[in-house]
């Protein structure tokens, strides 16, 4: 109990630091680059005077750290700001000073609308990844150097060589357009998540196939596994109770590290399938220079990463008591 408490306290502290670091970097990056937020809001028609006035009202002429502190203050109150572009009910609203700022969509609402869809997609993708990677990786690890190992190697080399955006296009063309088996493009029900999830799974599985087969092969080489047979344990029991347990830790850690890559895959795939999730929101926000949305997304996605990694490390420490943090 004491261990769990100090563990979470310490790790959450570190996590907050990471989130601050990331959000400040992104914040500063967005402030120093060309492209005045006031201009994005007001549109190209506004006069320089109005522009300057708006910018000053919004605090855009203050030093960046000050702006950042102000922003953090709002975030602490649960206010992530409002989109520059998106209107409340969806759709974008460019330029024009007339619209009251209140009508623009709140960043938090945008995230709340899109995040569940993305979690669904990511969850499905992980299921597919497990279905592909577990059999290949375990067989490859147990029979190192023999044909399942080769199969795992070739399969993972092929999967990792398929560019995700290209695979997405080909699948959309063949499976949805030509054969009409599974719908994709856009979103109406969960069936629309199948193809995007499959593409993400193909992208993720090579890493897990390799990591699984390497860590299982390494564990099988450990003296205690050989000795367990001399001690009279059955091969099946050794595998299910000891080898899998020991091999799980590196794979879990890889999972934690790959959360970022998973998000990256989600982003590209959602963009191609026009899947209205968190990733599509990100791409649109970036392309439209919708700074408050980008900042909110950075904080939220980093927090997700941090929390999942804390959980992963906690589970790892439960499995292997030697792990220290």
């Amino acid at each position, binding site marked *: 109990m004491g261990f769990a408490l100090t563990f979470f306290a310490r790790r959450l502290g570190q996590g907050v630091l990471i989130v601050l670091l990331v959000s400040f970097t992104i914040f500063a990056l967005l402030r120093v680059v060309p492209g005045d937020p006031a201009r994005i809001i007001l549109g190209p028609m506004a006069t320089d005077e109005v522009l300057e006035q708006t910018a000053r009202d919004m605090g855009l002429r203050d030093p960046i750290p000050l702006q950042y502190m102000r922003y953090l203050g709002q975030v602490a109150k649960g206010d992530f700001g409002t989109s520059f572009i998106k209107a409340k009910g969806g759709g974008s609203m460019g330029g024009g000073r007339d619209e009251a700022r209140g009508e623009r969509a709140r960043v938090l609402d945008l995230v709340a609308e899109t995040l569940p869809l993305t979690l669904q997609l990511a969850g499905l993708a992980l299921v597919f990844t497990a279905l592909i990677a577990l059999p290949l990786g375990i067989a490859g690890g147990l029979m190192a150097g023999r044909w399942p190992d080769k199969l795992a*190697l070739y399969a993972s080399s092929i999967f990792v060589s398929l560019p995700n955006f290209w695979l997405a296009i080909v699948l959309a063309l063949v499976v949805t357009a030509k054969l009409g088996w599974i719908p994709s493009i856009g979103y109406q029900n969960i069936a629309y998540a199948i193809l995007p999830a499959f593409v993400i799974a193909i992208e993720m599985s090579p890493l897990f196939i390799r990591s699984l087969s390497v860590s299982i092969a390494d564990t099988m080489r450990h003296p205690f596994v050989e000795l367990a047979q001399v001690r009279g344990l059955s091969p099946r029991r050794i595998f299910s109770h000891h080898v899998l347990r020991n091999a799980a830790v590196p794979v879990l850690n890889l999972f934690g590290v790959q959360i970022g890559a998973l998000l990256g895959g989600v982003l590209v795939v959602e963009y191609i399938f026009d899947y209205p999730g968190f990733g599509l929101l*990100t791409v649109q926000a970036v392309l439209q220079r919708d700074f408050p949305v980008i900042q909110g997304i950075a904080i939220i996605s980093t927090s997700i990463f941090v929390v999942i990694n804390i959980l992963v490390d906690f589970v790892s420490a439960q499995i292997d008591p030697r792990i220290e943090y």
Partner: protein
Amino acid sequence: MAASIDEPAAIAATAVAATPGRRMWLATWSQTEFKIGLVLFLLLVGTAFIYPLLSDIDPTKLSVRERFLPPVFLEGGTWAHPLGTDQLGRDLFVRSLVGLQNALMISVAVVVLMFAFGATVGLVAGYRGGWIDTILMRLTDAQLSIPLIILAIIILTVSRPTPFSVIVVLALAGWPVYARVTRSVTLAERRREYVRGAKILGASDSRIMWLLIAPNILPPIAFVAVLDIARMMIFEAILGFIGIGIQPPTPTFGTIIADGRKYLINAWWIATMPGGFLFLTLLSVNLMGAALERARNRLLRGTI
């Protein structure tokens, strides 16, 4: 079988008298995958750099009469344009080859930059520890938590995409991984007896770092960097696809596929054929990389 000190000499004496780099190379070369990958790679790269020189087809030349020509194996295709033509009548084969040239040059440059910078920082941080190390670790934590692609997109949308800026952005987004790997290997290496031995002889820290540790730990990391060449080719293509990579008219896989996507139903080959080309290239690199990675694992395990 686990090797222990107590095994008969016959089992234990398997070490060959060669440097780690050479042993790793031998272990790599003995794998069929590596040879397949290498042959495929040489074939593709050779074609990519030689064919456009021999052919008189300009990859950016428009030809209204030759729009939407299908590949040679479909009805209406000709050997003049083996992969067909796009919506502007440009030859897809030559465009893919030039795209491959660009992708390869960019990703190799990115990996070299990432490796040089990341390995230097990782070596210094791992060897010296202290505040450099703390900063590096927090930085890489932060970097890992935000998808590389998001970072690259943000930087590129707000700056102007040129080949140079694409290289710098990808390298900037990717170097911390190298720093992290180098750091952790350096940490282990620093504790080895020969480092202590050199200190006792009076060797300076920079001599230990650059003349003793670096030649020992960097070659395996550099070998496996081959896998990142493939990864960076994909990233470069994604950037081009979203429209923030190298700009037209220079052909890149990303822009070709993005263009072709608009004509997917009527002229499916525009998007798929160059992608298939990219896939084969990536496969060749990844097969070589996988063989190198295996050889490295065996080296680390001490079985070669």
